[in-house]
């Protein structure tokens, strides 16, 4: 049955900003879907507020709306575009929830839009706990297998307390309904914990519903990815087994595909249940994910949950098997059946089969607890990881060790030197699941733990435990061997040991190990991911390395460009860099090169086998990259290796690659050094006559104090060679400076602390530019909303700049050109400036693609990363202008006056983290970056654009109601004007006594409310925190006092997070918000596609 003919246009909803639990995987799935639908001749309308996605590239859809994903805005888009159908299953929970709202409020019916790929009844059956239990019961009565954990549904705290007794006591699991990534769920071991977790869960759940469940902690956990077509053909694409047993969110577990410890009988039971569930739920077409717990003692199977949509796991399953779930889901949604869709990889066989693997896939989560030092690092059923790495090997040990080194994090790899510690203590530590528990287990094994002891402590399946013992035994052999003979070396490599690990064990340098290894002829081969375990020939070169016998890399004639990706997402290095890598691949392919992508992040578009000519799913370490370069050099000519687009990860390899004779193209490693090294960069600035804030470096408190005394407080301090502002702090006095130096473990003579003058009240400016050695193309100038001192990644910004004039731009352009030239950039450079008074200071320069490249590209309708890739390989800006890749005239610094204003807003993960007492973590912005993602608001004026950015990031700004204001002394003056505006818009102001006094003196009425520290009043007057919790406050303005610890502000801000009340923590954000509220209160806010914006811009440029 071919494609439906009654659908001509489809609206696809994306997943919005990257947040924990909903990340780049939805860009991957959404991009695939849009491409497939367009290839089918449909008009694709897309809405996604996240500019850092490939799917929002104007060429992916016919009409791309970078607008907030709220029912209100999506309705506007529907009214304007009148699509025939809405495909809601590829944009995560965000898209699904939005589609349900549009169904329930009658919008879909009003405009005659058909929901495809899912129906509302099925979504409810799959996601609603009550209904899903009935589904599982029905399945059990049909096939005799599968049950739900014993549970009770609760809608109030009274229900919750009563429910525990019904279940037979603690511990119990709390799961709120309809939240993504398991937000708000957790284990409660006593009533206090229960009240906290369930209280938050009831709030987070849009239906005020939580489920209490019997504890199945320690059971084996599995997932199946299934697909169904309209003829009721069902296939299981992949089975996934969690290394960490039940109790840890699957997004935070190390997971393995295929399942390793099931007999066929047990596996077929899961398969039968899965198929019965998808039928019972009624997912007509598309993919779904079902999670199971299996009792290791008797095999009792509990069906935990299902997602009736494409998920993070389905992205992983697609990469793990080569079976593109999202792509096929899109085809099924428009009417095809599985047997009508060819398997891309074999081309000969249909998609109506089940992939079989002749390799092992391991996914490991990447956490960011170092960014939230007060957060409890225990892993629970609430997902906390910010990214993941996947690795493929021919056995588990190889895949596991590759995955751990792909995480690219200190201590993520196993180490076998030094004292392991006390066995008993290590075993106790291993009971609690944490980031890196696997390393604790390995140390316990080194300390003499038995397999049984490890199992008892962790409940990790004995087969996995034995694999860890196997790794440890090989490490022992490596340590004990007289010399590294080829057999031993090959055996170690076969189990995933890196040259670095072997070197550490043998007391050798990594490069020495590599030299020995090469001399002995021990090198990896590359195998193909082919969906069929070699039963059929594969047409798609999707490779992974293994120390096996036969390689499958075919020779080629065209020169290849190898693009190094950015590895697992982490705070500070996310999807934005993948965006640039993908663009490079597209541009270089168009320019006639064979593109070769190297990356280990399964969530991304770059690791789609369709993106580049060849894909190597490999860790981004020097060793792994050198071997790929070697393999490709045997296959054909190599034009170069691109390291500037994947962020700090590949950039860090630049010099070493060059030293190993690899042709690194673009900005040279020496130039990178000139920008990154303090001394060298200072030289560049001095030669160009550009000022930088006064600074110095020190390795001791005395040294730091001397510098601070000279340049004056406040100072910005940070360890050298860090990313994302790690450990960066604004220090206001000597006492804090002393404690900072004392606390900082990163400081050593080779890694001094940097002390900079902190520019209070400066405007921070970001510039992205291209330089080819001759000409500068100023990509865009972004003016930050928040003042300097807040990490640029966490600050909102506007492009074009809203308060800078032509003279300022001229200065920025001249400075940028001087730095690009002085450093020796060939490609992209990002520079951060601070304008303090009339002086333009240079804060730092990064000679690589920056986080803002996608934003700048979208705001100015110019593909900067594509241009950068071409410049790296020798094209000039003049040539690119002539070709049309860059505008013929002008650049991003001189946008037409009526160009739209784009506002980028950062999205923070506060609600995910709690401290060990269960309290939220503080939400104050600072020099250390903590946002996970971003949104873009675009409109003709700043106020509307800002309002859209807020709606996209946190929910709409309130247009009336009660606003609470409490600001630090230094902010009181700048608060008055916006506060008056709020009153003018009809807001009732609440304030603490100090702020209220200032407001009153300025003729603004404010109701005094009690501070949390004052407690409830004598007549039961609520404190501000109670008011927030009771939903009586609509907007919160709270700026922190200096660097103080837990003041009132902390409780207010965490309450705001818990209740999802907009909370502004800088006066600049308040000023912007007032403009936004003003825009919202003045008439209708419209929607406009990027294509329309671009047409307008291009017309204005010509």
């Amino acid at each position: 049955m071919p494609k439906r003919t009654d659908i001509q246009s489809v609206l696809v909803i994306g997943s919005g900003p990257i947040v924990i639990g909903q990340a780049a995987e939805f860009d991957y799935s959404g991009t695939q879907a849009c491409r497939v639908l367009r290839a089918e001749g449909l008009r694709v309308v897309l809405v996604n507020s996240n500019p850092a996605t490939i799917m929002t590239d104007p060429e992916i859809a016919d009409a791309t709306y970078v607008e907030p994903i709220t029912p209100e805005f999506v309705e506007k888009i529907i009214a304007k575009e009148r699509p025939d159908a809405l495909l809601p299953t590829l944009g995560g929970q965000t898209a699904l929830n939005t589609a349900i709202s549009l169904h329930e409020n009658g919008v879909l019916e009003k405009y005659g839009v058909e929901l495809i790929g899912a129906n509302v009844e099925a979504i409810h059956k799959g996601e609603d706990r009550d209904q899903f239990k009935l589904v599982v019961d029905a399945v059990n009565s049909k096939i005799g297998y599968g049950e739900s954990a014993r549970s009770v549904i609760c809608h109030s705290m009274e229900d919750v307390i009563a429910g525990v007794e019904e279940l037979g006591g603690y511990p119990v699991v709390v799961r709120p309904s309809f939240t993504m990534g398991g937000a708000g769920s957790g284990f409660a071991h006593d009533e206090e914990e229960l009240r906290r977790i369930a209280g938050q869960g009831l709030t987070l759940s849009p239906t005020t519903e939580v489920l209490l469940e019997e504890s199945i902690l320690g059971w084996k956990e599995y997932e199946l990815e299934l697909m169904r077509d309209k003829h009721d053909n069902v296939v299981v694409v992949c089975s996934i087994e969690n290394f960490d047993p039940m109790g840890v969110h699957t997004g935070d577990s190390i997971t393995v595909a295929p399942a390793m410890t099931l007999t066929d009988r047990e596996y077929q039971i899961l398969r039968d249940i899965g198929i019965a569930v998808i039928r019972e739920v009624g997912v007509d077409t598309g993919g779904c994910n079902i999670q199971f717990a299996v009792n290791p003692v008797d095999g009792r199977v509990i069906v935990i949950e299902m997602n009736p949509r494409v998920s993070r796991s389905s992205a992983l399953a697609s990469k793990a098997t080569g079976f593109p779930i999202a792509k096929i889901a899109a085809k099924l949604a428009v009417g095809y059946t599985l047997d009508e869709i060819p398997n891309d990889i074999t081309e000969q066989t249909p998609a109506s089969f089940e992939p079989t693997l002749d390799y092992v896939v391991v996914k490991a989560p990447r956490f960011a607890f170092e960014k939230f030092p007060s957060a409890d690092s225990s892993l629970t059923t609430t997902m906390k990881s910010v990214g993941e790495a996947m690795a493929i090997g021919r056995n588990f040990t190889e895949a596991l060790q590759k995955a751990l080194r792909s995480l690219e994090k200190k201590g993520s790899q196993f180490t076998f030197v030094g004292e392991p510690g006390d066995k008993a203590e290590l075993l106790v530590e291993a009971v609690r699941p944490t980031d890196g528990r696997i390393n604790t287990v390995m140390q316990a094994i080194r300390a003499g733990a038995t397999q049984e002891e490890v199992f008892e402590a962790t409940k990790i399946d004995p087969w996995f435990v034995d694999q860890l013992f196997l790794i440890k035994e090989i490490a022992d052999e490596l340590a004990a061997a007289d010399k590294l003979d080829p057999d031993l070396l090959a055996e170690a490599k076969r189990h995933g040991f890196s040259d670095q690990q072997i070197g550490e064990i043998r007391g050798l340098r990594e490069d020495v190990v590599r030299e020995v290894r090469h001399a002995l002829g021990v090198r990896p081969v590359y195998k193909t991911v082919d969906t069929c375990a070699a039963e059929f020939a594969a047409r798609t070169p999707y490779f992974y390395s293994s120390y096996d016998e036969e390689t499958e890399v075919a020779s080629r004639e065209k020169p290849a460009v190898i693009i190094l990706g950015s590895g697992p997402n982490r705070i500070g290095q996310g999807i934005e860099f993948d965006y640039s890598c993908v663009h490079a691949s597209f541009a270089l392919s168009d320019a006639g090169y064979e593109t070769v992508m190297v990356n280990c992040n399964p969530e991304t578009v770059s690791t789609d086998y369709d993106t580049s000519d060849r894909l190597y799913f490999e860790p981004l370490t020097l060793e792994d990259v050198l071997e790929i370069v070697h393999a490709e050099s045997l296959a054909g000519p190599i034009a170069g290796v691109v390291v500037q687009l994947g962020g700090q990860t590949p950039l860090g390899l630049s010099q070493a690659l060059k030293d190993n004779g690899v042709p690194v193209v673009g900005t040279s490693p020496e130039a990178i050094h000139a920008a990154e090294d303090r001394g060298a960069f200072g030289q560049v600035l001095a030669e160009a006559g550009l000022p930088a804030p006064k600074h110095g470096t020190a390795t001791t408190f005395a040294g730091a104090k001397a510098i601070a005394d000279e340049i004056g407080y406040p100072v910005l301090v940070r360890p050298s060679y860090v990313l994302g502002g790690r450990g960066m702090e604004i220090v206001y006095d000597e006492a804090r400076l002393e404690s900072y130096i004392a606390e900082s473990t990163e400081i050593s003579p080779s890694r001094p602390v940097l002390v900079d003058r902190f520019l209070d009240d400066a405007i921070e400016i970001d510039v992205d530019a291209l330089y080819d050695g001759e000409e500068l193309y100023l990509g865009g100038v972004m003016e930050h909303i928040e003042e300097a001192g807040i990490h640029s990644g966490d600050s909102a910004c506007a492009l074009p700049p809203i308060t800078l004039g032509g003279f300022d731009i001229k200065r920025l352009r001249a400075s940028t050109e001087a730095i690009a030239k002085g450093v020796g950039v060939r490609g992209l450079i990002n520079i951060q400036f601070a304008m303090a008074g009339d002086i333009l200071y240079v804060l730092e320069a990064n000679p690589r693609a920056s986080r803002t490249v996608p934003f700048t590209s979208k705001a100015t309708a110019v593909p900067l990363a594509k241009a950068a890739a071409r410049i790296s390989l020798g094209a000039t800006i003049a040539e690119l202008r002539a070709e049309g890749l860059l505008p013929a005239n002008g650049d991003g610094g001189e946008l037409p006056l009526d160009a739209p204003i784009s506002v980028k807003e950062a999205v923070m993960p506060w609600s995910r983290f709690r401290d060990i007492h269960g309290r939220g973590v503080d939400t104050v912005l600072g020099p250390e970056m903590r946002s996970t993602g971003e949104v873009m608001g675009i409109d003709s004026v700043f106020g509307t654009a800002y309002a859209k950015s807020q709606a996209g990031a946190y929910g709409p700004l309130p247009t009336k109601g009660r606003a609470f204001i409490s600001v630090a002394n230094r902010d009181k003056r700048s608060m008055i004007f916006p506060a008056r505006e709020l009153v003018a818009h009809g807001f009732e102001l609440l304030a603490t006594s100090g702020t209220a006094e200032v407001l009153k003196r300025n003729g603004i009425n404010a109701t005094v409310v009690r501070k949390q520290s004052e407690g409830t009043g004598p007549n039961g007057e609520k404190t501000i925190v109670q008011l927030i919790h009771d939903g009586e406050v609509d907007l919160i303005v709270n700026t922190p006092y200096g660097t103080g610890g837990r003041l009132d502000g902390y409780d207010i801000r965490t309450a705001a997070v818990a209740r999802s009340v907009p909370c502004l923590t800088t006066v600049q954000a308040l000023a912007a918000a007032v403009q936004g509220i003003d825009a919202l209160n003045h008439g209708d806010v419209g929607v406009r596609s990027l294509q329309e914006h671009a047409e307008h811009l291009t017309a204005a440029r010509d």
Partner: protein
Amino acid sequence: MTTSTRGATKAPAVLVLEDGRMFRGRAYGAVGVTFGEAVFSTGMTGYQETLTDPSYHRQVVVMTAPHVGNTGVNDEDPESKRIWVAGYVVRDPARVPSNWRSRRSLDEELAGQGVVGISGIDTRALTRHLRERGAMRVGIFSGNALPDEGTMLTEVRQAPEMKGADLSTEVATKEPYVVPAIGTKKFTVAAVDLGIKGMTPHRMAERGIEVHVLPATATVEDVYAVQPDGVFFSNGPGDPATAGHPVSVMRAVLERGTPLFGICFGNQILGRALGFGTYKLKYGHRGINQPVQDRTTGKVEVTAHNHGFAVDAPLDKVSETPYGRAEVSHVCLNDQVVEGLQLLDKPAFSVQYHPEAAAGPHDAAYLFDRFVSLMEGQRA
């Protein structure tokens, strides 16, 4: 000296293909020498079922899944009383089995039953080789004193070929036995054992069928002596071109119009009984992920396969046979190989794959219901 318990001390082993390609690894299971036809199986689960499937008699099975033996060996999952494979090839055997039903390790089981295996070789390279060159004879030699390469190759080339091999009598039961119906008995079926898997009579028994399993040498008289409501022909090893006796028995059953069902070898026998040819596939279908379309409903089922031969029947038309019209009812979507036959004028059908699964998905279990329907129809 190391304190390793890793087990790298296993004796060396060599796998030698008849075209001269060799793979060096370590002994697995019993140490010694074995010969057979090299075939690969792509199932990721179900090694116990695979090893004990009589259809694998005289075949050396290469597992494409790298980890084998993880769940050990239990006493419930075997499909017959012994391991039938002639040799076993795996990449990474488990050191510690883990499953609540496990009784012993697979390594022990193989050694205990004298099955020679090899581990630690590039099984994917071997699989690709077999895919490109076709299934061929192979030898596994293990132990500390291995013959030289030329000697090993000569020995491999002297081993018998699968084409023309008549093997079902070697694996089938010598004495008849009865598998009682589970619950109320509704039907009696005579099942001709050509290498039957244990799950097949079990699937029938679940449906109220008392199954009389008869030796491969059973005559028409033996079949009808049990007064069957239906007759079943099982799976089994070897070349269907040698199956003259079962073909003649089947023809007699077709003459009488008794409801008939065949699986795998039974499908090839029906093909030959109807006058179609059979032929050897280049490298066969062995796995549990094969897409088969039921041409009567258009639905696709994911199925378990283990066949090196196939029926040569026209896909695009109904054929006239001595027993009336016949058509191809099922086809493999990967390569359009005939996967099922049915007569339109008599109650007889067969499939080339394994609806009893074990190992594999249960999608095709409805075929046993079809058999039951035929028997009900005959009764009515």
